[in-house]
C-alpha cells in the first residue's frame, strides 16, 4: 500500500535569538527584562492571600544581571535556605485553624420550594422527552406515508362539462377503469323505483350516488373482474360479456353470476372548476 504523500515537511532550524551581535560576540538584547520573577512568586494570582510559598528560594539566592561589557552574569548561592514541608500550599489565613468553615449558605431555606423545584425539573425533562418521543414516532410513520407525487397520481380529474347527458365515459384510475354516466331524469327515476327486495345486493340508488345525475363506479365486474359493456344488458345498464352478468342503471347486479353491485370509488365534486375528482 502506498504511503500518502507527506503533508508537512519538518526541518529543524535555529531562530536567530537576536537581531544584532556585538563585536565581543555577545548577542545584543536591549529590551530584556531582568526582573522576571522566579516561579512561586504570586503573579497577582494570590487570590487575596498575599503569602509567599515557603519552598521558594529567597530572591537573593539566585539572580541574573547585565554586567560590564554587555555580559550576563548569573549567580547562584548554593545551600540557600529553603523550607520544604509536607505541603507547599500557602498558609490558611485563619485565626483559629480548628474553626469550622461557614456552610450556612448550603442550608435549606424552604423545603417546599426545593420540593416543587425538584418535581418541576423532573416534569420538564419528562415533557421534553415525551415530545421528542412523539416527534420521533411521528416522523418515522411519516416515512411510510405516500409521498406527494404518489398522492398526485392517485387522483384523477374529469371535467363534468365534457360529458353530455345520457353518455358514458370510461377513464383509467389507478390502473382500473371507472365508469361515469351522466344520467337522464328518466334513468334516475328508473333507478330509484326498484324494489329493494328483488335485488341480490340490496342498495338504494341514493346510497350509491352523491348526486343523482352523476353515477361514478369502478368498471370491474364483481364476478371475475371483466370490464362490463355500457348501455346494454336486460336492465338498460351494463352487461358483462364474460359470463353474462347484468347490471342496472345504478350499477347493481340484477342477473347472472355477479354477487355484488359494481363498486363505488371515493370521489368528489369541484363545482368551481366543474370537475369530478376521483380518488
Amino acid at each position, binding site marked *: 500500500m502506498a504511503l500518502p504523500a507527506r503533508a508537512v515537511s519538518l526541518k529543524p532550524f535555529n531562530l536567530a535569538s537576536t537581531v544584532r551581535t556585538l563585536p565581543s560576540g555577545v548577542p545584543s538584547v536591549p529590551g530584556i527584562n531582568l526582573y522576571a520573577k522566579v516561579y512561586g512568586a504570586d503573579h497577582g494570582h494570590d487570590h487575596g492571600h498575599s503569602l509567599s510559598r515557603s519552598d521558594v528560594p529567597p530572591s537573593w539566592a539566585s539572580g541574573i544581571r547585565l554586567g560590564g561589557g554587555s555580559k550576563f552574569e548569573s549567580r547562584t548561592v548554593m545551600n540557600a535556605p529553603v523550607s520544604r514541608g509536607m505541603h507547599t500550599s500557602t498558609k490558611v489565613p485563619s485565626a483559629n485553624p480548628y474553626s469550622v468553615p461557614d456552610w450556612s449558605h448550603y442550608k435549606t431555606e*424552604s423545603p*417546599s*420550594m426545593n*420540593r*416543587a*423545584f425538584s*418535581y*418541576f425539573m423532573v*416534569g420538564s425533562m*419528562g*415533557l*421534553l422527552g*415525551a*415530545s421528542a418521543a*412523539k*416527534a420521533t414516532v411521528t416522523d418515522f410513520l411519516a416515512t411510510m406515508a405516500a409521498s406527494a407525487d404518489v398522492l398526485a397520481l392517485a387522483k384523477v380529474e374529469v371535467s363534468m362539462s365534457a360529458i353530455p347527458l345520457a353518455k358514458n365515459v370510461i377513464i383509467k384510475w389507478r390502473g382500473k377503469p371507472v365508469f361515469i354516466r351522466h344520467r337522464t331524469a328518466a334513468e334516475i327515476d328508473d333507478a330509484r323505483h326498484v324494489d329493494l327486495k328483488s335485488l341480490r345486493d340490496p342498495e338504494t340508488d341514493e346510497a350509491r350516488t352523491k348526486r343523482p345525475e352523476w353515477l361514478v363506479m369502478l368498471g370491474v365486474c364483481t364476478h371475475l373482474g371483466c370490464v362490463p359493456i355500457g348501455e346494454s344488458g336486460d336492465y338498460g345498464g351494463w352487461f358483462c360479456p364474460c359470463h353474462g352478468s347484468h347490471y342496472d342503471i345504478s350499477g347493481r347486479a340484477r342477473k347472472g353470476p355477479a354477487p355484488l353491485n359494481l363498486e363505488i370509488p371515493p370521489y368528489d365534486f369541484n363545482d368551481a*372548476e366543474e370537475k369530478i375528482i376521483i380518488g
Partner: protein
Amino acid sequence: MPGLADTLYNTIFRRNSVFVASIFIGAFGFGLAFDTASNRFWDYHNRGKQWKDIRDKYATPAEGE
C-alpha cells in the same frame, strides 16, 4: 413564593396520575407551540423565496382551461 410552590405541588405534583397527565398535555402543547414557532421563523427567514410568496407573480387566473 413558598405559597406558590405549595400550590403547584398540591395541584400537579402530588398525584402521579395528574403529574403524568399534565406532562403529556404539556408535551402536546409544547410540540404544537414549537412547531408553530419554528415554522414562523422559517417563513420569516425565507420570506420572498417560497412558492406561496411568489405564486402571485406566476399563477394565471384559472379560466378557459
